[in-house]
């Protein structure tokens, strides 16, 4: 694989795209082909499997450049095919298919996310150089100083407000524009904030919140509105605790587009017969919405709320670029990053673990949803 990737990187940029995609799809196609034939009986399939026992270790060798792993793969696949061949007479063999479907994703997750998670969790109980076990010291440090507590509280505020408000706005907008003329255009207007990079978004909101002293010409829209209404200009981002809400507005502005796109698609999936039947029953639009549409898109609502909740828990760029956590606006991800950057790995990891713990209620809720859903089926 190294060799292939090294070779491909010498090509012109745009030529790399089709090549790497072709290689990727070839591997996936091969994988699925074997998944299909693995449990089947018959001489033809046995021969293919035998060939695979030679081919796959060869590919492993090419990919990883290691004889040891190629040998391991040969042993594994040989044993597996033999076992499957034996078992397939009883119509089994799904384990192989399962591995085929799951392993690429699980393998990548293990090296890219699970390993860092375990490492971070260990680091949270170590000192900054990772040389000494310090127990709960890092957590005590977080929860015994004002800024630490404020940081955790702010994160709670974010995760309580952003998902609810974005989903409500996104849902309302999706319903309002549903089936209207110019729906595509309306969608783009609310979707646009999603398409703007965080750098762009931070400039946009810097313009909105900009403040100039009373009597001077305002360059921030919000203060101009305040002045038009006869008020004094306000420094939106310096007065705690309201400044956090003004930062939250930015994330709501971005995430509403996400909620709108997913929910709009879900609404179109609600059977028309049901809506028509409800209409014939003489229900008004609101009743139809509550009794037919909302139950119909329930699982999408859970998905949207969950995804936005996690995005709000992890919010980083907005706080980083707009206040850098000053004026009591800091959130966990920002503190985690600052501590990490300052080589305070232990404290940084402790913040990350607090973040892991805060997501638990969301995980448990989803776990119960999935179980319920499976029971219905």
């Amino acid at each position, binding site marked *: 694989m190294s060799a292939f990737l090294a070779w491909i990187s010498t090509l012109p940029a745009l030529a790399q795209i089709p090549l790497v995609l072709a290689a990727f799809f070839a591997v996936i196609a091969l994988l699925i082909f074997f998944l299909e034939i693995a449990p089947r009986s018959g001489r033809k399939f046995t021969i293919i499997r035998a060939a695979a026992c030679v081919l796959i270790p060869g590919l492993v060798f090419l990919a990883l450049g290691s004889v040891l792993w190629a040998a391991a793969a040969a042993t594994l696949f040989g044993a597996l095919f033999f076992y499957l061949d034996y078992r397939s007479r009883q119509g089994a063999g799904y384990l192989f298919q399962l591995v085929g479907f799951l392993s690429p994703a699980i393998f990548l997750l*293990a*090296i890219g996310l*699970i*390993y860092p*998670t*375990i*490492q971070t969790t*260990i680091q949270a109980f170590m*000192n*900054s*150089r990772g040389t000494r076990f310090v127990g709960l*010291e*890092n957590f005590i*440090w977080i929860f015994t*100083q*004002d*800024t630490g507590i404020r940081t955790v509280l702010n994160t709670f505020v974010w995760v309580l407000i952003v998902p609810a408000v974005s989903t409500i706005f996104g849902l309302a907008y999706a319903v309002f524009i549903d089936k209207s003329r110019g729906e595509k255009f309306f969608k783009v207007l609310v979707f646009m904030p999603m398409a703007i990079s965080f750098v762009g978004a931070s400039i946009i909101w810097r313009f909105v919140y*900009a*403040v*100039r*002293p*009373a009597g*001077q010409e305002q360059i921030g829209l919000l203060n101009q509105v305040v002045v038009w209404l006869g008020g004094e200009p306000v*420094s939106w*981002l*310096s007065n705690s605790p309201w400044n956090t809400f003004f930062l939250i507005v930015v994330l709501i502005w971005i995430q509403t587009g996400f909620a709108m796109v997913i929910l709009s698609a879900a609404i179109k999936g609600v059977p028309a017969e049901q809506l028509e039947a409800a209409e014939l029953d003489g229900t008004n639009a609101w009743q139809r919405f509550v009794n037919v549409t909302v139950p119909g898109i329930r699982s999408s609502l859970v998905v949207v709320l969950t995804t936005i909740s996690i995005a709000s828990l992890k919010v980083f760029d907005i706080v*980083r*670029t707009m*206040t*850098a*956590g*000053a*004026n*009591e606006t*800091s959130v966990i991800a920002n503190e985690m*990053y*600052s*501590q990490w*950057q*300052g*080589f*305070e790995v*232990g*404290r940084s990891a402790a913040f990350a673990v607090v973040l892991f713990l805060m997501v638990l209620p969301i995980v448990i809720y989803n776990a119960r949803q999935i179980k319920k859903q499976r029971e219905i089926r």
Partner: protein
Amino acid sequence: MISHHYRRAMLPIATLGIAGMVLSGCASGSGGTGGPGDAGDPDGIVTIYGTIADTEAELLEESWADWESENGIDIQYEASKEFEAQISIRAQGGNAPDLAIFPQPGLLADLASRDYIQPAPAGVQANVDEFWSADWAAYATTGDTLYGAPLMASVKGFVWYSPADFADWGVEVPETWDELLALTQTIADKTGTAPWCAGFGSDAATGWPGTDWVEDLVLREAGPETYDKWVSHEIPFSDPAIVSAFDSLGEILLNPEYVNAGFGDVKSINSTPFGDPARALGDGTCALHHQASFFDGFIQDPKNGNATVGPDADIWAFVTPSVEAGGNAVTGGGEIVGAFSNDEETIAVQEYLSSAEWANSRVKLGGVISANNGLDPASASSPILQQAITILQDPDTTFRFDASDLMPGVVGAGSFWTGMVDWINGKSTEDVLSTIDASWPSE
């Protein structure tokens, strides 16, 4: 039921757990003692990573272009605004550049103490001994080991003003801190507006101009020894010497009669981008502004009104006065070049960058200076830079590096900055200082 679920849960969790343990158990740890060991190949390419971007990066590349072709080494320079975070990610991730230009000696020391930086090779050591003062060499030294040579420098703590306005008001450049306060009051009386303007805004680094102010006052009021103790946290931020510096600064920055000319009240300091006062200085709405030597570039920027800078021009500057007349202490900043590789080409580049030859080559291109003693002050491109070189090369000058760049990153590039913002917003000095102290690294 419970045990059933438990058993079902165990299989995947155990699998993931084992996978994780295997991976975490065998991640290659780096280090050892006394440097990272040999790294880098002599492949004709030396990569340099730094914060210097855009036009200044072009000048940097121009400064070594001739040397590159003479020596057959290709220097590839890459800049990032996220340098501070990136360099530690890359060092830890095993993808470090050959050389890095550190604007914070504290960061270099952090990486050096974790054995990521190569000790300075003999040639660099010799250049540092020859061309740099002991103060400067100390900033590149951790423990007893020199880890690199300084590159460029800047002098901080200039107060920018308009000589013509001063003449109109009949005032002189102040010699002492008290005279500066008196001058402020005089200007306030004559103009009826706030004399000072200040801007702390700088995105994620908002608050840093305030730390420069505090450092100037600590150095001038408490002296260099206390300053050094403060930097190394032998005395905390809550020490009376530091409190006193904040109080003195508060006489100007927290006084609504004295700030914030052209921008609003005291709190507007935080929301004003640090470059904006250049415009207020140029058009005369602001009489006094405290900023480092690089500010002449901002003042002369066409966007800000094309004011000229020089002793007889629109805008000129004096060094923030000491408590007593005749003080000679200044704060300043600069970069240190640290090496992650020790192949011969990297060493050659490192030696070249620490030589007077490079310093003159770069300074001639304009815009910057160096503390290199082999530098000819005449090469500097502007009056303020010539003055800065004179100050740096004067043997009587007590030079101290910007304290926030020397402190650990969580403080110097974190809680000290946010502390300044909170302080301007009205948080008490005591609370601000104790918060900064609480954030000092654990060990």
